[in-house]
């Protein structure tokens, strides 16, 4: 497991030059591109969900796919998440590669039963006779001024469940490569999409069908004083915080976890071995959020490296408010900087 060091920093969110390039695409366009690539190359891949057909999904992730591949490859479902999850398990167990969409993170709960009891267990239960190569795409997270239940960060529902993989891209290129990998994987993958950065910036994503590994964290920025670990939409704020810290002479490693389960802890440990300090940033509530797992690993495997208490900058232990207050709830650049500085007060 080796960390991949990216040169591009993304700290400035709109690299103007790239926006001009015809092939530069947003994160959500990269998702569409990956779906189309894989559907072209594998007949068993199909897309299903609410409004994914002619409407192309409420976020347009499946825009154009039904026109290209037909209604037998891109299926609108009746309005029921239990149905979507159950059909997906049945399809996957019988030779298809379904990519199901949950319309919003807040609607994933009725899918939990089929995901946990069946998708995650089918191979285990049958000693490999049947298995569930499926992807569940879940637009994830807050900050888009959406109505109630449209802003949840509920990855912790899945990270304790054996048999699942949980993935969350934070750039167009990673969205493309990780989604290809997720579809090709022989086991169920929960693919969470940080909807706040769906259209945040564009980058060139060659449509080459190249998948990325499903168990690698990405070091997005190289530093020596403190390790900032995050995933999803908070990658943006975390990189901004690192940039600002650099202005004050504090250099930070920034790690995009990208694949929460299985966790590439080695990359995080390596960084913390170097910096001795770690700030974990995530949108979900703090208590028993996935950040706890990373901190727990540090407490057991990197204890002697730690020069300062592990900090978690997270959503509070309350529901994300409706949109008038939601930005007060979410982590932000200031909170991350403050936490980083707290770790630096220790030596």
């Amino acid at each position, binding site marked *: 497991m080796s960390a991949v060091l990216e040169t591009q920093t993304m700290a400035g969110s709109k690299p103007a030059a790239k926006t001009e390039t015809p092939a530069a695409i947003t994160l959500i366009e990269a998702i569409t591109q990956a779906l189309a690539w894989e559907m072209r190359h594998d007949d068993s891949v199909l897309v299903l969900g609410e*409004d994914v*057909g002619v409407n192309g999904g409420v976020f347009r992730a499946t825009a154009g796919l039904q026109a290209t591949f037909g209604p037998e490859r891109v299926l609108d479902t009746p309005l029921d998440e239990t149905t979507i999850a159950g059909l997906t398990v049945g399809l996957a167990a019988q030779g298809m590669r379904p990519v199901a969409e949950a319309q919003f993170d807040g609607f994933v709960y009725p899918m939990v039963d089929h995901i946990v009891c069946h998708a995650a267990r089918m191979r285990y239960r049958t000693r490999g006779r049947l298995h569930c190569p499926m992807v569940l795409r879940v637009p994830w997270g807050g900050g888009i001024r959406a109505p109630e239940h449209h802003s949840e960060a509920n990855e912790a529902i899945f990270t304790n469940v054996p048999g699942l993989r949980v993935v969350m891209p934070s750039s167009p290129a990673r969205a493309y490569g990780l989604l290809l990998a997720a579809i090709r994987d022989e086991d169920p993958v929960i693919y969470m999409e940080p909807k706040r950065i769906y259209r945040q910036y564009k980058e060139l994503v060659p449509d080459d069908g190249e998948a990325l590994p499903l168990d690698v964290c990405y070091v997005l920025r190289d530093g020596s004083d403190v390790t900032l670990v995050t995933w999803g939409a908070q990658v943006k704020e975390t990189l901004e915080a690192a940039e600002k810290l650099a202005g004050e002479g504090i250099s930070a490693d920034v790690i995009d976890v990208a694949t929460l389960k299985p966790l590439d802890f080695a990359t995080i440990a390596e960084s913390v071995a170097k910096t001795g300090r770690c700030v974990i940033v995530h949108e979900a509530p703090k208590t028993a959020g996935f950040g706890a797992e990373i901190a727990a690993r540090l407490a057991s495997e990197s204890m002697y490296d730690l020069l300062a208490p592990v900090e978690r900058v997270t959503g*509070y232990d309350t529901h994300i*408010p409706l949109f008038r207050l939601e930005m007060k709830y979410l982590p932000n650049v200031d909170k991350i900087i403050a936490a980083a500085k707290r770790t630096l007060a220790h030596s």
Partner: protein
Amino acid sequence: MGVAATFQIESLQYLGADGKPVGELPEAFADPRALLPLFKQMLFVRQFDGKAIALQRTGKLGTYASCLGHEATHVGIGASMEPEDVFAPSYREYGAQIVRGVRLREILMYWGGDERGNDFQVPRHDFSWCVPIATQCLHAAGAALAFKLRGEKRVAVTCCGDGGSSKTDTYAAINSAGAYTLPFVQCIINNGWAISVPRSAQTGARTLAQKGIAGGLHCLQVDGNDLFAVMEGMRRAMERARNGEGGSVIEFMTYRLHDHTTADDARRYRDEAEVKAAWQRDPMTRLRAYVTAQGLWDEAQEKAWADECGKHIDEEINAYLELPVQPVEAMFDYLYADMPPDVMEQRSAVLAAEGRA
């Protein structure tokens, strides 16, 4: 080769698309003046709806779900209930809620991103808007169960859409209502679309009313753009419920004349011709034709009522716009009756960061 069971689903319509009665009107409307307050409520709701959309378009409201075209169904449902009954709406039935006492400012607050919109001053016991489709149906069944267990003569009424009728929660609510013989009314508001998915794609069932057969409930299909049919269908269901005869499923046939919400663009998936045709069955035009023909209504009255509505709506909009945002600690203060120490600590930290410790 016997017959295990047979079922028949009645359908109700009293007013033609031209506003002329197609048969005898329901008894309750023997005197057509009984209709007028409801018609006026419908006009009020439609005017409010237009203004809410405008507010959204000018950045003063978040995503908003219009109720354009549903006025007869919504107002009729609300008007059929008693104050002590409990209503469990989805997110679109403002007409019913307004009749029950919910204020416009509350509707605006909710879609304006402020939880205080759910804190209805009246009716205190109704459920708030419910975004996870059809889950409210089971809450209504639970409420109905509470009424039955306590021996209260109250009815729980809930709504879901044609899309929502596919949701397993709707089925669960229908089944529980049948299993416990609950005072429960499941309104299925069939407006033709669930965002981009047409009614025909939701189910192979010929009617949505027949979903009730699965739970042994009384089933009825009514013209949801015909206020008479709505009121008569509801009357029957409410009576059955209040008399302890059990639950009903009513399918209201109407049409969503607007986009799904202001975040939607229905032109992507829906034929303009269909929408035009639907306008021909607009509940408002139909009822206006009827009351005008009855000599109960004229243009001057309409103008005067529109002005009155406008004034009230503007007052409510202003109250909404002037409402200061909740203090940040509000996100902690309503989570538990007894705030746990950890939450308290986070609250204090937030206040401290705002210099208000």
